């Protein structure tokens, strides 16, 4: 009996070990096979992407289009909606040949030798990098080299509630940042010590400080030369300080705390009609329509001294080739298709994303896909987009900015907030 048990145990352990040893790549390959592909022997390029659900189906559609056009490479897509899984696989040498992420990750991935330096590929194919929106391309760089290509961009616009402006007797839209601040103040309603309506775009708390800074014509410096106390950020903080003094820190911070924790829910102040101006992304457009808010969207105006409008921070979705990729040439070919070629047009059309190339920003098929697409595409085309300097310390730098804004909201003076910020940033590169 014992012998039988031992034998059974041995078999089950062997089976378990065999199962553990199965190569993930093989499994992916065996489940592949797209219809209509050319039947020649092709090099398989594994593409793991973060998109899932319905979006993953769209990505598979784009992959199928690429495969149809190919007799050299066959891309096999796998939806892997967890960044950490992809990174862990790459570090174990088992990762994909090409994958996607966000532009903010580039310095980290370049420094950790996760992402392949693309300079040689770009030079070899004489790729015209000026085809990309400047700030979007900036996010793909680390120490002067390019490590990824942007597939789409995210920018921000100024939403305003027309009914609330009319109620306040304001009939025109703000043409300058100063007008926006003035209208924000005029439309803020304090009732019995509590804020009933917020005029300024302080909710969400994350977007307005950087965008105001850019709209003042300032920025947060360059890699290795950070400028936390730049004039634009100082003026933005001074504006918040003036609002804290006028409406009270408790009233303002209560409203902002509540607004931030209820973003995109029925209690969201813009969606429930208690916020006049809001700086937010394209996703708010349909939500505001569904909530029956009478609103319009416009580019964020610049300060009087700056003149132009469409100021925004930008974030990109990007593709990169892991250094462990076994089919780098194929991955590069697919990357060009997805980020610059027909694939990018199809991607933006199907997904409703904003293109990162200047040419597609003028493509009628893309910009007329929806009213929001048109407005936000125009903002990208204005090219008044900025990013925090790409570095390994971006998370700490963002935190220092957030902390300074929060300190002023909690009653600190601008000087105190900026001094603390400078201290925190002094060790960053």
């Amino acid at each position, binding site marked *: 009996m014992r012998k039988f048990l031992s034998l059974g145990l041995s078999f089950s352990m062997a089976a378990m070990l065999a199962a553990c040893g199965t190569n993930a790549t093989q499994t992916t390959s065996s489940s592949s096979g797209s219809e209509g592909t050319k039947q020649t022997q092709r090099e398989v390029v594994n593409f793991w992407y973060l998109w899932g659900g319905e979006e993953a189906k769209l990505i598979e559609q784009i992959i199928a289009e690429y495969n149809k056009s190919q007799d050299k490479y066959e891309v096999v897509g796998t939806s892997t909606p967890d960044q950490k899984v992809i990174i862990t696989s790459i570090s174990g040498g088992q990762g994909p040949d090409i994958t996607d992420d966000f532009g903010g990750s580039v310095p980290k991935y370049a420094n*950790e030798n996760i992402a392949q330096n693309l300079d040689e590929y770009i030079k070899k194919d004489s790729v015209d990098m000026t085809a990309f929106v400047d700030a979007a391309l900036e996010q793909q760089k680390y120490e002067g080299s390019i490590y990824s290509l942007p597939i789409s961009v995210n920018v921000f616009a100024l939403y305003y509630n027309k009914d609330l402006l009319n109620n306040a007797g304001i009939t025109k839209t703000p043409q300058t940042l100063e007008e926006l601040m003035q209208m924000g103040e005029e439309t803020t309603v304090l009732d019995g010590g509590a804020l009933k309506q917020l005029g300024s775009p302080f909710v*969400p708390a994350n977007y307005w400080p950087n965008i105001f800074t850019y709209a003042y014509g300032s920025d947060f410096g360059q890699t290795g030369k950070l400028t936390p106390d730049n004039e634009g950020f100082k003026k933005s903080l001074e504006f918040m300080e003036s609002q804290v003094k006028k409406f009270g820190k408790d009233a303002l911070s209560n*409203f902002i705390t509540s607004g*931030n*924790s*209820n973003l995109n829910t029925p209690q969201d102040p813009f969606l429930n009609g208690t916020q006049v101006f809001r700086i937010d992304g394209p996703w708010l457009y349909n939500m505001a329509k569904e909530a029956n808010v009478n609103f319009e969207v416009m580019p964020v105006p610049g300060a009087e001294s700056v003149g132009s409008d469409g100021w925004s921070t930008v974030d990109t979705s990007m593709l990169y080739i892991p250094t462990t990729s076994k089919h780098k040439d194929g991955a590069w070919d697919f990357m060009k298709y997805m980020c610059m070629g027909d694939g990018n047009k199809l991607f933006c059309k199907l997904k409703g994303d904003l293109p990162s190339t200047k040419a597609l920003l003028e493509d009628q098929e893309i910009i007329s896909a929806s009213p929001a697409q048109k407005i936000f595409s125009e903002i990208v085309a204005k090219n008044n987009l900025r990013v925090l300097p790409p570095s390994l310390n971006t998370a700490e730098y963002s*935190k220092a900015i957030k902390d300074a804004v*929060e300190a002023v909201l909690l009653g600190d003076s601008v000087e105190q907030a900026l001094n603390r910020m400078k201290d925190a940033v002094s060790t960053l590169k």
Partner: protein
Amino acid sequence: MNKSNRQPWKTNVEGFLFALPWIIGFLIFSVYPIFMSGYYSFTDFSAIKDPVFVGLENYKSLFKDPLFYKSMTNTLIYVLFSVTVGIFLALIIASMLNKKWKGRTIFRAVFFLPSVVPVVASTMIWVWVFDPSHGYLNRFLKLFGVSTINWLGDPSWTMASVVMITLWGMGSSMVIFLAAMQDVPTELYEAAGIDGAGVTAKFFNITLPGIAHVVLYQVILALINGFQYFTQVYIIIRAQSGNISQGINGGPRDSLMMYPLYLFYNAFTELKMGKAAAMSWILFLVVSFITFVLLKVSKKWVTNR
């Protein structure tokens, strides 16, 4: 074969073989990671590139880092209040529910119920409850003329808020105290009653000494849980930033930057695994030291171990 005739070494080998799957798992998944985390704490390690030995650099950088001290102070304050108030309340409620009165079974269930609610769900509900504009707590307090409190947005209230969340879930401690109290011999209470002892005297002279070993166990457990307090603050901070911020965020003025949260940011946002490993070893030493002191001191009041 007669059982007594079997060779002891054979029995031992067989026993060892049966335990082997667990031993292998224990060595691979517990012992090895513990030792490796000790080694990593002396390296520059991102979990992607090979670790590079840097000696005490991670420890030195931590002792120069203001957020390290902030997170440690926050955690110590949290532990102090959540453990003392939590244990005290659990004892009081258990003692009340140990008496014979109508409806006590329902109350036992009511007090225990929060312990079975998943922590993510309960924390999300607490975020609503604490909302300064629409939250139920402020609405309730308004009935008594209390002005609006920004529970999770004002740094002077955040710690009180998270301690409150912890106290709401102290039902499991209460149940363990209740079980321990039911083991205290009733003759002692009868004898004390004949001698004229009141409720308070009975509690301090019979109940408390009778369950002192359980109190000690619960204090140590609450202490360890307190030092590992992470999930609730992580969820609160994410909710407070509209689930937008992916970076480092310790709540208003870093008042919710608990030690494990800062450790998490170092490990998974910054990919500074070496620094995070150093933090985990410092935490281990702090918890071990406090537990050691507690065990030493407890010899004076825990007599029934």
